[in-house]
């Protein structure tokens, strides 16, 4: 395992301290360091990359593998004692309904992107304008983003080119305007995906090659994907995924301006006495001891749940919370899964998780015939341990000969295809992150409590599009198709809201440049800023927005000037 401190170890004074090394934190580090700023990145989890700060072209190496047991044993998602959360649908449920690892993201160098299948669609221009485009909806709190798609576009392009995205220009009928084509063509499509694409075509819908941050040819020193089939939920053993560590954090580390401390968990932000400024952060070190770290600026880059938790842990009622909006308007995307089982083996488990998308169910704002939905991903990619556990725990297949027969016949893994609609959920004040009054993590720190209940807004989309997903499945030749029952939380791990940004300090926590309205040197940069979650996988937009937040620290009036040439 790598040393817990890497990068330029001689640095001892920092322009910025970034909490979290995922897609947001790595993007900020990359831009600040390439513009000569000195940056300290604190990451709570371990570093599974070797030589991330080593310029030799065969680095970094890593400790990942197609090992399902390792993925299930806490390599990916933090264990309950490390990241306990509680959940309830509303205050009427009492303190909590349950305790678990609800909506947890990996805590490791590179964050969730390290183990993600890295679907990388852009949002569309209307996604930034839903406050204006939708009528007032009871209990919903839609708002415009304080920046437009056009303002974010150069940052989308920058991230797509530096991290490496495969896709096919013009194939998405709802494709937003692009200043440059995708840097790489699509890789090998899934056979099962091709069947669905043909079924959809018969019904007038369009599946197109999924934009994903996975190499389809050697790109910027990393090899082409070899379709090992163990993609989502696995780190890429050959670094063909452009995850945050290899896609942007490495650039920061190689600049000589970055120092990364892994296994260093920030516990709280310490405010300067009597001033609206942060003086330091207190962190627990790899050996369990504690120390303070300081910098000129502090940037929250964990994720929307942990960023809000950090602010709430740092002062009663939360730091910078004059709006009383810290933690509120949590959006997760609603999820509707149509699962089809085919007579023949369609072997989706031999490829990347998802090779086709469809945007026909994104919908149109304020059009009752086409309610706002989201993107549809077509995927298979089951792995055998989770397959067997699902038969037993969800399909009620008894252990014994039936379980063994289902596994040999590969019913879910080898004959199954999912069409998953990730659709826009209405921001609600009551859907929020706060601190559980009694739950504690392994360091004795209060865990996050999620209060989250659905809104008729997203239920309308599910009702409209569910039957149509089944139509497509049957047109594609499925023998069986059904909509899967939803869990207590959507389980999307698409985390947004909680520190929403906007121009008005009464209706937002952070300014359009990411800085807290109330605190002079504290910033958010990732999904926490999103006023609305759109209906698209958020990682690319998280990285693009974080890139812009960093660039605006360098050139506030024209942040795109801070972008290095691609």
């Amino acid at each position, binding site marked *: *395992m790598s040393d817990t401190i890497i990068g330029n170890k001689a640095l001892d004074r920092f322009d910025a301290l970034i909490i979290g090394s995922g897609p947001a934190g790595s993007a900020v580090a990359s831009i600040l360091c390439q513009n000569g700023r000195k940056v300290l990145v604190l990451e709570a989890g371990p570093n599974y990359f070797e030589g991330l700060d080593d310029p030799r072209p065969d680095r970094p190496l890593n400790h990942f593998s197609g*090992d399902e047991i390792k993925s299930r044993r806490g390599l990916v998602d933090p264990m309950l004692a490390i990241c306990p959360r509680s959940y309830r649908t509303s205050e009427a449920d009492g303190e909590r309904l349950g305790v678990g690892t609800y909506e947890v993201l990996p805590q490791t160098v590179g964050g969730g992107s390290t183990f993600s299948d890295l679907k990388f669609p852009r949002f569309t221009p209307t996604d930034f304008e839903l406050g204006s485009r939708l009528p007032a909806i009871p209990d919903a709190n839609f708002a415009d983003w304080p920046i437009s798609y056009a303002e974010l576009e150069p940052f989308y392009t920058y991230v797509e080119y530096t991290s490496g995205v495969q896709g096919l220009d013009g194939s998405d009928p709802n494709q937003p305007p692009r200043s440059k084509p995708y840097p790489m063509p699509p890789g*090998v499509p899934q056979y099962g995906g091709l069947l669905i694409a043909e079924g959809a075509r018969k019904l007038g819908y369009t599946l197109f090659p999924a934009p994903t941050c996975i190499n389809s040819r*050697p790109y910027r020193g990393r090899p082409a994907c070899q379709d090992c089939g163990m993609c989502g939920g696995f780190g890429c053993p050959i670094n063909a995924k452009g995850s945050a560590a290899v896609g942007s954090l490495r650039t920061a580390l190689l600049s000589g301006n970055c120092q990364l401390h892994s296994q260093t968990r920030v516990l709280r932000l310490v405010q300067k006495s009597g001033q609206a400024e942060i003086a330091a952060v207190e962190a627990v070190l790899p050996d369990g001891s504690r120390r303070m770290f300081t910098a000129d600026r502090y940037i929250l880059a964990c994720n929307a749940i942990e960023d809000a938790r950090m602010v709430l842990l740092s002062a009663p009622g939360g730091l910078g919370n004059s709006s009383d909006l810290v933690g509120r308007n949590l959006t997760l995307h609603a999820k509707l899964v149509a699962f089809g089982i085919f007579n023949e083996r369609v072997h989706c488990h031999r490829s990347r998780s998802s090779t086709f998308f469809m945007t026909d169910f994104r919908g149109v704002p304020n059009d009752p015939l086409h309610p706002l939905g989201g993107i549809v991903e077509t995927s298979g990619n089951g792995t055998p341990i989770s397959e067997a556990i699902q038969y037993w725990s969800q399909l009620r297949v008894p252990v014994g000969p039936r379980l063994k027969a289902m596994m040999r*016949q590969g019913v879910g893994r080898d004959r199954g295809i999912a069409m998953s609609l990730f659709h826009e959920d209405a921001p609600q004040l009551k859907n929020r992150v706060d601190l559980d009054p009694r739950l504690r993590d392994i360091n004795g720190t209060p865990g996050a409590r999620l209060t989250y209940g659905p809104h008729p807004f997203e239920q309308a989309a599910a009702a409209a599009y569910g039957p149509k997903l089944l139509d497509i499945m049957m047109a594609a030749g499925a023998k069986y198709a059904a909509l899967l029952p939803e869990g207590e939380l959507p389980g999307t791990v698409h985390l947004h809201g909680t520190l929403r940004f906007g121009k008005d300090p009464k209706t937002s926590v952070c300014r359009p440049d990411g800085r807290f309205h109330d605190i002079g040197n504290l910033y958010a940069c990732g999904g926490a800023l999103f006023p609305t979650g759109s209906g698209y996988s958020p990682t690319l937009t998280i990285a693009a927005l974080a890139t812009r937040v960093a660039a605006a620290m360098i050139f506030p009036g024209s942040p795109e000037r801070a972008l290095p040439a691609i």
Partner: protein
Amino acid sequence: MALPAGADSQKSQLTRRQFVRLTVVGGATLVWTSGCQDAPPPEPAMMPVPRFLTDEERQGLAVLADYVLPPDDQPGGAALGAVEYVEALLTALEYDPPRLLADGPFSDRNPIPLPDGSPSNVYPENSFRRFLPLTREQLLSWRLQLYGSADVPGGGPNDGLLGPTLGFRELCRQGLAQARQLAGRPLAKLEAGEVDDVWRKLRPDFLGLVTELVIAAAFGAPEYGGNRDSAGWKMIHVEGDVLPQGYSFYNEQTGRYQERPDLPISTKDLRPDPDPMDAETILHLEFVVRVLGGRTSP
């Protein structure tokens, strides 16, 4: 990744003492020597030296493993190594590093491809035989998971709210004792039909744990003690960890992807279906689809 041309001149296994890993980065093939320990790694499936379960407990667990995945023309849970897998998990923290998270990137089950994408006779070193060190937080969590609140200084962080954690070790011990008591004699002495009665009366937390552990043993990487000779994977027609060969190969000379004729990604399998859906599976699926209000093609 691929081998350089000519590297396939003789069948060989790259070992740690030699050059251990070949990696293609941006088209250049580079040879990398591991900087890790020089000692050969321990054999993965060997019996763990520290034991937790007694002989009778091991025999009882084997009976339950065969109840979860019974032997037929293919091995059952016990023959696949479920007991060894469980014992290795329960004693994992007695090793340094703990035997919980196997290293990567590759096992030695698949060859490094040649520059034209065809398989070579060269296999990577099996890095799955090494285990990764845990962080302080992971180690504390696993101590709580395996040994329970009673053996963690100060107990678990939420014992007051959730009650103390019963560790996997104690849960296995108590569950196997309950099974022995229900059976009235060692489980190994039961007739096949009698295990059914015992299984139905087991405490649900133990029943759930045994089910999950036997499944993981059968279908996980062999280096954890189960899936002996990859028989669990062969039985269900999966290849396991396929790198460094992969299912696709990007040929840098042609600038195109190639698929494997035997295991295609984008086209129909040519081989006949080795295990078609049977009548019971179809009945089960039709039931599930009815419950969910789904659709069935005529």
